């Protein structure tokens, strides 16, 4: 028999997020056997075809094992059978929420190997579309993360903005997900008439609406209770895993390729980086929201800089990269994207390694989930931002 005071410890009236000490009291009647819980593939809490196997002791996770590969499409192999100019149509499919950034990475690494000069106007337009693409991607996660925590409204808000931006990008590129707008040496086409005016209008509109998200989600008590202090990721651990992007910035490391290794014309604009303090779910989400705000800030600067001129260069009939290997990293919406391109002097790449941010970010999930309660796992899975296609490639 245990008295009431110890029994209260079993069902403590603590606020969510507080450390709950589950104790076995009395003669051990409450002891539970370990259980294996398989979530997914294709479960509402797992963002697509991603599976995670949890070992549970009661409500507490003792071990987590992500099972990936359900969407492996062999892009690295396929790329070895494509011309250097054709790879872009493959790579904008691994992270389908940031197609433009992906193809930009490939264009940059091929141009690096060919030592090609890209016209200024093309570089500025690339930046403009890449930043709009980042806003699109982040808005998706703003909606989906809140949805996973039980808030439906932000999803509708996010799609209101997303649709307008989709129309804008569709006007320029003709695509909604797979833009295929880049090409080696520049862009496929110049911007259409009236694009800039619409871009200016939309940037202002989105900036006006952004405070809604800050109030509605970040300022929400329930959201805070579900995220503050949940799943903190220390900076050294994050770096050792190779975690990048908003997830790393939330841990307080101001690492952003646009600042530390500027490509395109990022050295000519002001790129602010928001930093978190604890690296918990709340900070990760806050970093994501701030990245939208700062992307719009960059877009406004690009409007003022955009020069006139051609947007692409004439390519030779046969594009052959010289023998050797090159590495290019860019700041994708979800983190650092790296392409290692190795050529043997032939018409197709010898090896194209896609270093995708989601793969490295998801690797940290077992570390984060260990010792956590099951409901908190949803908060962690949603805030270590990943796209399944980007993990499996």
């Amino acid at each position: 028999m245990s008295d009431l005071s110890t029994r209260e410890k079993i069902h403590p009236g603590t606020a969510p997020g507080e450390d709950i000490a589950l104790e076995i009291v009395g003669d051990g009647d409450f002891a539970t056997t370990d259980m294996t819980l398989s979530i997914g593939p294709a479960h509402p809490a797992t963002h697509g075809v991603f599976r995670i196997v949890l070992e549970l002791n009661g409500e507490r996770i003792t071990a987590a094992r992500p099972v990936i590969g359900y969407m492996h499409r062999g892009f690295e192999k396929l790329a070895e059978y494509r011309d250097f100019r054709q790879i872009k149509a493959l790579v904008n499919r691994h992270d389908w929420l940031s197609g433009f950034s992906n193809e930009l990475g490939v264009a940059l690494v091929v141009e690096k190997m060919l030592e090609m000069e890209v016209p200024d106007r093309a570089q500025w337009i690339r930046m403009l579309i890449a930043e709009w693409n980042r806003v699109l991607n982040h808005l998706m996660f703003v909606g989906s993360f809140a949805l996973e925590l039980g808030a439906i409204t932000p999803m509708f808000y996010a799609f209101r903005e997303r649709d307008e931006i989709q129309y804008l990008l569709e006007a320029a590129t003709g695509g909604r997900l797979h833009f295929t707008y880049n090409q080696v040496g520049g862009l496929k086409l110049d911007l259409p008439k009236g694009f800039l005016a619409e871009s200016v209008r939309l940037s202002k509109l989105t900036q006006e609406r952004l405070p809604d998200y800050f109030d509605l989600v970040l300022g929400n008590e329930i959201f805070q209770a579900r995220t503050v202090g949940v799943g903190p990721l220390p900076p050294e651990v994050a770096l050792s895993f190779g975690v990048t992007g908003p997830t790393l910035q939330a841990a307080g490391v101001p690492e952003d390729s646009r600042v530390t290794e500027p490509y395109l014309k990022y050295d000519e604009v002001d790129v602010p980086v928001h930093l978190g303090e604890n690296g918990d779910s709340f900070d990760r989400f806050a970093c994501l929201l701030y990245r939208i705000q700062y992307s719009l800030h960059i877009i406004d600067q690009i409007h003022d800089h955009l020069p006139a001129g051609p947007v692409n260069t004439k390519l030779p009939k046969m594009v052959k990269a010289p023998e050797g290997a090159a590495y290019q990293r860019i700041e994708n919406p979800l983190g650092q994207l790296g392409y290692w391109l190795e050529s043997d002097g032939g018409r197709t790449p010898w090896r194209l390694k896609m270093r995708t941010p989601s793969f490295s970010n998801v690797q940290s999930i077992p570390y984060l989930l260990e010792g956590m309660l099951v409901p908190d796992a949803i908060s962690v899975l949603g805030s270590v931002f990943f796209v399944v296609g980007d993990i499996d490639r």
Partner: protein
Amino acid sequence: MAGVLARRDRALNPEETEALLREHLGEQVLGSVVEFGTFTCKLAPEGWVEAARLARDEPQLAYDLFDSLFGVDAREEGFDVVAVLYSTSTGNRLVLRTRVPGGRDAPRLASITEIYRGADWMERETYDMFGVVFDGHPGLEPRILTVENFEGWPLRKDFHLASRAAKPWPGVKEPAELDEDGNVIERVPEIGDAPGPYELDKAMAAQAKAVIEQERVEREERERKAAERAAKAAERQARKEAKARAAAEAAAAKAAAAEADADQQPASSDEEDGA
């Protein structure tokens, strides 16, 4: 936690990095090359783990961000394994590269999972794609990306793409587009090569900005006028109140005076009434 790029000015250049690695590893550093701005250090497989440890722990190197690890087919000689490391404090990138011993039949290399956590899945992927076994890895099986009963190592060059072996490439074979008779089509450069409708676009953007500015000015003007109106109304109200107050005071004074009068001459007023 050192700040990002805090030690950029003290970052080692490729020669110094190689000298430092050579100092510790001696003959196991086989050479180095700088290709397209990326510094690659070639190592003997025996020095693989030690080099990774040095790269992380040596304070002058401090490669803390584990970027990636992957395999590359090296034809008859087997496979190369490449690790890309980045230092957030110096902004340097180091690529370690080694030829895996064991040729194409039994490639084996020591694991660096003890040094970098991120190497775990990367090595599993390299095993899955190339069949390189990593000694000391906590568990290469089950295969990470392909299905569990998959046979063969997909990214080896002798693994043929099934769809390509079955039928020829359906698209135009050569990038220089050929017409039906096999003649090269000379494309006349069109929209992309032209400067584009730039001036018009710029004007429209300027217009959009002007509209936003105009709206702002008008809003401010409205707000200013509203404030003025409010101030005037408040003033009027205050005046009215003051007037009312003065009138009330006057009335009170008058009443008091009348009362005093009434006290002094009650009789005379009666007389007047009577008259």
